[in-house]
């Protein structure tokens, strides 16, 4: 099983999404470019405190066409969405311990971008976050990140 | 506030301060201008003081100098929103018994004015033909006089003598030099015989900055206020405050840092030099090169610098600088259903279309008594006024079909009455005026007035920081003009405190919308700070 944030892990995620018939059916036809930003918060062993990881995800016609790390923070030009959260939040979501929607409501994930688009495609969004949280596999022995 | 240090800090965002700021910024100086009020422009001010949509110029209204004002041309203020209207009939006097009115037309419409004078006196008509033609040629002399700083003076020299300039003005006209020593009233009386014409000219003289009609040595104002200025009056489209809008826009364009609601408490001295200012809220704005004050003389020297930091000479002169008793106004404002329709209009309907309408006097003596009352600290018994109804020319100044009347009473100094007494005047005087008005213009009844307002000298003092309500920020008596304004040694804009300059109406040439005090200060500052002479314009010699 691939380590979280590894290229292989992201490939798995990509395969997962691209394999979802439901998502393909519900996903908007437009291209959507987004970044995920993982902020080191001192607890996660994967992202040193003060460091940030950036990933670019491109969805197009219900398929992930691009999913890769970025060397630096996206300047926002041409970007549709930006999701920013502390590393432990992302990791707990990946482990299925935190609900991503709840994290959005509580402000643990900062969301930037056109919410109208997300709301109009609410079902597709739901599938996507479920895939991230419940379907993605990690290499954690108890299915939990290696910290309390 | 970001950037609390600038090359030059200007105190006061009236039109002189704005003038100074715009030119200095154009010269490449980092300028910050601080205005104590929430609004820019000082007395270049328009407000809806009666009812919504009625714009009243309760301070400055008549713009006589726009066509010679450097700021107006150099910064292309018309393109920034300052548009003017030049009413054909500039002034008129109406009469209670419906006698023919006396009208003054634009400067080059000498014949029309003469015709109106001729109703009462052929001799007066001829006098006007001769004098006004000469006065029209006086324009460039006027411009030079306004837009040149008085010469530098030091205490070893004899005092500057304003009489020399006024005498030479008379001789330029081919008139007797001795006229300069006379009173305005004597000058008027000498050339004009009809009581009606005299009455109008008396009122015009005091309105436009002449000191008392009866002070010897005020003869110069005969040339200036009675002959030259009537005919040059222009109004700003949209109200006087639009001129401010254009000036502010010019300043922003030039990169001036502008801070309103920033009242200066004191001027900071460092090693005896003006180094910046402290605001009432404790913030400091430092000046690397100069502090320029465009507010009142006493405010600057006595309050902001402080008497303790002044030489005896400066302290004494500043303390004894006179405000009033001339140039003290109460402004009346009325929202009207219809404009005044005068009895005198049956002889000449022009009176209803005169911009500056004098109403309430039956004779020249009435005007003299009226003027004397203010000098004796009394509110005039006769509630006469000069009024203007700008909506007759500019529909944007009142709601559709309605009219905005504004006007001036001459009142005693603010300190002559207590606050309660002024409130009493506010509560009663407009009614008195209206009762009198109705006898001159029968439609001027209470029913025609939607709402009214009276701005007292005390309001002028408190709101615009015009001490005693003196709209010129200092009397225009012979000892306070030209090289003696505000007093010898300071007239050249620099003060005894290095780095502190004056640029307000307490300087030559005094109150009114000239933009000259600020412009002249710029000329001096360009020299002292070794700046490029940005004020120079090849199309202009001053």
């Amino acid at each position, binding site marked *: 099983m691939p380590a979280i944030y590894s290229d292989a892990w992201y490939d798995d995620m990509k395969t997962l999404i691209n394999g979802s018939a439901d998502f393909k059916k519900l996903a908007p036809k437009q291209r959507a470019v987004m970044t995920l930003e993982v902020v080191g918060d001192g607890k996660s062993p994967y992202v040193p405190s003060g460091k940030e990881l950036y990933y670019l995800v491109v969805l197009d016609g219900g398929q992930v066409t691009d999913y890769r790390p970025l060397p630096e923070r996206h300047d926002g030009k041409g970007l549709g969405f930006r999701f920013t959260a502390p590393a432990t939040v992302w990791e707990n979501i990946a482990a299925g311990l935190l609900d991503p929607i709840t994290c959005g409501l509580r402000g643990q994930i900062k969301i930037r971008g056109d919410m109208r688009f997300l709301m109009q495609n609410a079902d597709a969004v739901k599938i996507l976050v479920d895939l991230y949280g419940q379907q993605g596999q990690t290499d954690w022995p108890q299915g939990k990140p290696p910290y309390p | 506030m970001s950037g609390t240090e600038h090359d030059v800090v200007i105190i006061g965002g009236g039109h002189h301060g704005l003038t100074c700021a715009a030119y200095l910024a154009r010269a490449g100086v980092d300028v910050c201008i601080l205005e104590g009020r929430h609004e820019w422009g000082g007395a270049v001010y328009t407000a809806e003081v009666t009812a919504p949509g009625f*714009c009243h110029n309760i301070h400055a209204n008549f713009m006589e100098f726009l066509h010679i004002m450097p700021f107006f041309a150099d910064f292309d203020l018309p393109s920034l*929103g300052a548009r003017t209207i030049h009413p054909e009939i500039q002034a008129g006097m109406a009469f209670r018994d419906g006698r023919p009115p006396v009208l003054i037309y634009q400067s080059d419409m000498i014949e029309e004015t003469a015709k109106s004078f001729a109703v009462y006196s052929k001799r007066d008509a001829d006098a006007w033909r001769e004098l006004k033609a000469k006065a029209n040629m006086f324009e460039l002399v006027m411009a030079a006089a306004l837009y040149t700083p008085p010469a530098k003076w030091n205490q070893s020299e004899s005092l500057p003598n304003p009489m020399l300039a006024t005498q030479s003005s008379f001789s330029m006209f081919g008139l007797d030099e001795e006229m300069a020593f006379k009173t305005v009233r004597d000058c008027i009386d000498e050339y004009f015989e009809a009581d009606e014409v005299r009455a109008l000219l008396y009122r015009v003289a005091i309105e436009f900055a002449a000191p008392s009609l009866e002070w010897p040595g005020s003869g110069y104002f005969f040339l200036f206020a009675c002959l030259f200025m009537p005919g040059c009056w222009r109004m700003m489209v949209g109200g006087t405050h639009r001129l401010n809008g254009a000036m502010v*826009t010019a300043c922003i364009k030039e990169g001036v840092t502008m801070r309103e609601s920033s009242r200066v408490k004191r001027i900071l001295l460092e090693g005896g030099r003006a180094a910046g200012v402290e605001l009432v809220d404790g913030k400091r704005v430092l000046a690397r090169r100069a502090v320029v004050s465009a507010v009142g003389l006493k405010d600057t020297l006595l309050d902001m610098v402080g008497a303790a930091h002044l030489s005896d000479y400066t302290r004494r002169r500043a303390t004894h600088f006179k405000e009033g008793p001339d140039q003290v106004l109460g402004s009346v404002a009325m929202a009207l259903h219809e404009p005044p329709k005068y009895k005198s209009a049956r002889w000449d309907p022009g009176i209803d279309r005169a911009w500056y309408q004098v109403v309430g006097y039956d004779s020249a003596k009435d005007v003299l008594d009226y003027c004397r009352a203010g000098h004796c600290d009394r509110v005039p018994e006769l509630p006469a006024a000069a009024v203007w109804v700008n909506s007759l020319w500019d529909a944007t100044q009142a709601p559709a079909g309605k009219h905005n009347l504004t006007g001036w009473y001459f009142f005693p100094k603010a300190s002559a009455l207590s606050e309660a007494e002024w409130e009493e005047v506010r509560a009663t005087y407009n009614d008195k005026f209206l009762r009198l008005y109705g006898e001159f213009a029968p439609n001027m009844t209470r029913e025609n007035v939607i709402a009214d307002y009276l701005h007292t000298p005390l309001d002028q003092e408190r709101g615009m920081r015009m001490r005693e309500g003196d709209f010129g920020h200092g009397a225009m008596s012979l000892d306070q003009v030209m090289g003696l304004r505000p007093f010898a040694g300071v007239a050249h804009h620099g003060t005894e405190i290095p780095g502190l300059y004056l640029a307000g109406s307490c300087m030559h040439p005094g109150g009114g919308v000239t933009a000259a005090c600020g412009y002249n200060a710029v000329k001096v500052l360009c020299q002292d700070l070794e700046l490029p002479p940005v004020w120079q314009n090849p199309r202009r010699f001053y």
Partner: protein
Amino acid sequence: MGMFDQGFDAIIIGAGHNGMALAGYLAKSGWSVAVLERRTEEGGGLCTEEVTEPNFLHNMHSNYHPLVGICPVYDDLELTENGVEYGHPDVQMGSIFADGTALTIHTDMQKTAASFARFSQKDADTWMRLWDEVSGYMDLMVRTLMYAPPIALNDITRALASWGVEDKSEFLTARLRSMSVAEFLDKHFENDRIKAMLAFHAAICAYQPHVKGLAVSYPVLLGKIANWHVCKGGSHRLAHALMRVIVKAGGRVFPQVPVTQIVVEGGRAVGVMTPDGFVRAHKLVASSIDVNQTFETLLEPGLVPERTRREVAEVKYQDASLFNVHVAMNGLPRYKAAAFDPAIDRAWILNIGFESLADFEHEFSLVRSGRLPERPRLNAAVNSLYDPTDAPEGKATGLLRVFAPFALEAGGPEGWGAVARQYGQVALDRWCDLMVDDDARSIVRRFATESPHEISQKMINYRFGDWMVGRIHPKNLLEHRPTDELAEYRTPIPGLYLCGASQHPHGYITFAPGYNALGVIAEDMGIDKWWDRV
């Protein structure tokens, strides 16, 4: 050269804060822009005048700025650098009750809870949970529901359902869309006065507590309850700053230039007529005034499609306006209720007279019938508490407001002329009754009143005295504001946009209508959205 010879890329009708903000962004995007304003002064509702006596600065309309630090315009246009200064009162609001008790809302929510706890511990606990929840999604909500074109209510509720938000939140439910604010408060709180305080906050945002369906916006409103700011030196200072932004970027603001007609050529808006003649708009005309003026007065009837005309004629305005009393005072007021809660003397916005939810129902139904309450319930604010520069040293400037009918049962709108002064005195008396005796007798120097009718004459887009420029009602919010067709800031006439308070979300100093129109214009015109980097 004349002011208008070259024309402009964009002409904005109306120099209110929305129009000026749009102009600022466009000018900073390299466009030539002119804002044409009918009144003598720019700023629209950002209007500060010395209506009582010199040096007492009265905010005639906009007084509360609740989106400072939240609204992106402040940063994008560098308004602080351009001279705006705000005070942030530590005691934001308060209620003084007839029995001498008082409630206070602080920026410090622990203190707010402590104040609530004196009336109900349960409500204090509920409040903290509500506040905690709202704080979590406030940022997202504001961006979603205010600083973006309107989202259809159905889309919102469908998304909330799809995401299972009801199960994840104590306060957000799909039922909010049919509930009133009063019902929301009744559901969650037990104490009448706490409910009245919270309903008061909604009411001064023009969210009448008993209007069904407004609860859906209540969480967003609540999120701003501790963010009310005083614009130092008067609200008009914000207009000065906007003016500087526009002019620095090469744009122009021309007050006292009323637009008399929007000129359409070949079906496209190409400029406007003014008393000075035609002014060409090379790219667009944006109207920040109300839709009735835009479509019924400024456009020739033949140019407005039938549907637009019909729907614009149906636009509804608020049935409650405001009666304002501007007060010059000899000092800051001290209240008897300070014996109960000393913080009340520092509370900026005061509720005086609303003690239960029923009071609101009573008051607004009276207002709807055109009658004046004998004992007016007030909202009172003394800005000098947090901006001493708005009055001479040691003095203070106060504002009393009463929800009031535009047209009086006796005399209609003009009927105000006969009663305004006296009613102002009644309102003042009620306020002074709450002060310690010395203050009650001597605090008032002078006052000036401003009736709904006068408001509508001064700010003619506040039709019927409606300072929100369109009623706050489910039928006139989100995708329905001002009409279904016009909700997206575009109009059926190419080149003509709407950017004022008539648009989503509504009036108030939100800048959102102007900001959202900007986004739409940027998309249509291919402007790089430098301000909107996701």
